[in-house]
């Protein structure tokens, strides 16, 4: 099932939490939803899950208008909300049984499904404990289990890895990746490496507006415009090297990273820059001892797009 959002707007009083957002998520795509606090991520997710209604705009899920077909569409959505609210006084297994029943799973399939969820999320030793007694990480697993118990075609996960330890994060990411093969997944997070690790596509919003949409690769290209190479060239006068580097056609700008150690940051506009630099060194009998392509971090892109 795909998700199509058209011109979505949501106001809280006078403040626009979501401002005219349009978005398409294809079946089998994992979309990473990024944005600073208060950008409108959670609001958008709450609207997609039909918990709150939009002021303007339409949402189509699997080709059907959400506001007219929500009771049918909701069956196909699994949702893990931001603070992972759960019935604290219920034992894990009872809670999952309740969720399975309410999602309309056939009675005969419920026990199998619950056991499967407990196994997938690694809750076997905790299954008889009350949810309130579990640590945050285990509660997060219960939250994930309740979201996927009815095998939904769409998964909406609001910060799924918050409160988990690094091992658990890796497990959950793997799980999301696996689920994402057949399902449409939207996940929001503050952890940027997580987006790169799990998502096919990144969607950044700020103050309710879209500021970026694309893969990590395209975002990088958009953000910096040119590649940066870190090089170290030995056996030569720093100033002379600096000048000769600047004369290269494929190089737009050269900076001293460290003058004493002959280190330079080179902004290139062409992919042949690496070859040109190498050739320059050979011609001048300099020794090229380091050449590292420098990737703009997603953090920098994020900061650039959302700070103004």
């Amino acid at each position, binding site marked *: 099932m795909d998700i199509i959002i058209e011109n979505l707007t949501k106001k*809280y009083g006078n403040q626009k939490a979501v401002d005219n957002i349009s978005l398409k998520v294809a079946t089998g795509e994992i979309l990473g939803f990024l944005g600073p606090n208060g950008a409108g991520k959670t*609001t958008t997710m709450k609207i997609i899950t*039909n918990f709150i209604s939009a002021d303007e705009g339409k949402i189509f899920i699997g080709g059907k208008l959400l506001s007219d077909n929500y009771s049918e569409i909701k069956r196909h959505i699994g949702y893990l909300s931001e603070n992972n609210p759960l*019935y604290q006084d219920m034992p894990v297994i009872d809670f999952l049984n309740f969720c399975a029943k*309410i999602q309309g799973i056939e009675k005969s399939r419920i026990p199998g499904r619950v056991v499967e969820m407990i196994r997938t999320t690694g809750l076997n030793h905790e299954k008889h404990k009350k949810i309130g007694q579990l640590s945050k990480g285990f509660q997060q697993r219960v939250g994930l289990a309740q979201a996927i118990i009815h095998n939904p075609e769409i998964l909406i996960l609001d910060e799924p890895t918050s409160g988990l330890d690094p091992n658990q994060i890796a497990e959950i990411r793997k799980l999301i990746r696996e689920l994402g093969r057949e399902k449409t997944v939207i996940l929001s997070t503050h952890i940027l490496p997580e987006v790169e690790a799990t998502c096919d596509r990144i969607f950044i919003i700020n103050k309710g507006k879209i500021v970026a949409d694309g893969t990590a690769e395209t975002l990088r290209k958009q953000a910096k415009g040119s590649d940066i190479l870190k090089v170290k060239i030995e056996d030569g006068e720093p100033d002379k090297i600096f000048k000769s580097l600047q004369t290269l056609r494929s190089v737009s700008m050269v900076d001293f990273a460290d003058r004493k150690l002959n280190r330079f940051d080179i902004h290139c506009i062409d992919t042949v820059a690496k070859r040109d630099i190498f050739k320059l060194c050979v011609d001048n009998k300099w020794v090229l001892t380091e050449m590292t392509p420098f990737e703009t971090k997603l953090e920098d892109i994020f900061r650039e797009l959302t700070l103004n």
Partner: protein
Amino acid sequence: MKTIWIITTRELNSFFDSLIAFIMIILFLGFSGFFTWISGSDIFMVGQASLRSFFGIAYWTLFFFIPALTMRLIAEEKKSGTIEMLLTKAVTDRQVILGKYLATIILICIALAFTLPYVITVSKIGNIDTGGVICGYMALILMSAAYTSIGIFASSITNNQIVAFLMALFISLFFHIIFEVIAGGMTGLIGQVVNSLSVTVHFESLSRGVVDSKDLIYFGSIIFMGLFLTEISLSKRNSYS
């Protein structure tokens, strides 16, 4: 219907797991038992094989206990955020409200069922008016159903349980006594209208053993209004995030 029942059973389990149900049943039986059999104008004072005094006492005990049962129904879920988890599942607002409502009514019926030994005891003492007893219980259940719907509405407009409790008590108080008092000072049509809004009037006539469609319509409309307003109030969840 199946979905409503799933919510009802969860809610009932939660009543019993959190001991609310036990406390409520014990207190209800304690109060009504004490005043029915031991103290004040009890059954023995009346000198008749009748449960009228018990119905009069339950009329008041239920009035106080029902807001205590209903206050958490929605307010608690709003506060903890579980309402979001619940309503984004394959349920409608109405199913959730009806499920919770039904659970409370069942709990009250269970509490009332524990007073059936009173009926047996009294029937051994003398000739009991079976029809009157049935009508009395019916009046209690209808009154409880009306107050529960008010209580669930109060619970839906706030996420603070204490506020929900006081609101429910406040609104119920109008039906329970204030309308009657106001009507006492009025004459003519307005007096009649206000008087007919009072639960007391309808309760008395029912528990006297007279089943009048007016009374049934009266309780039915309070229940409907309460649940209807709850649904509206629950659907207006846009303002909190």
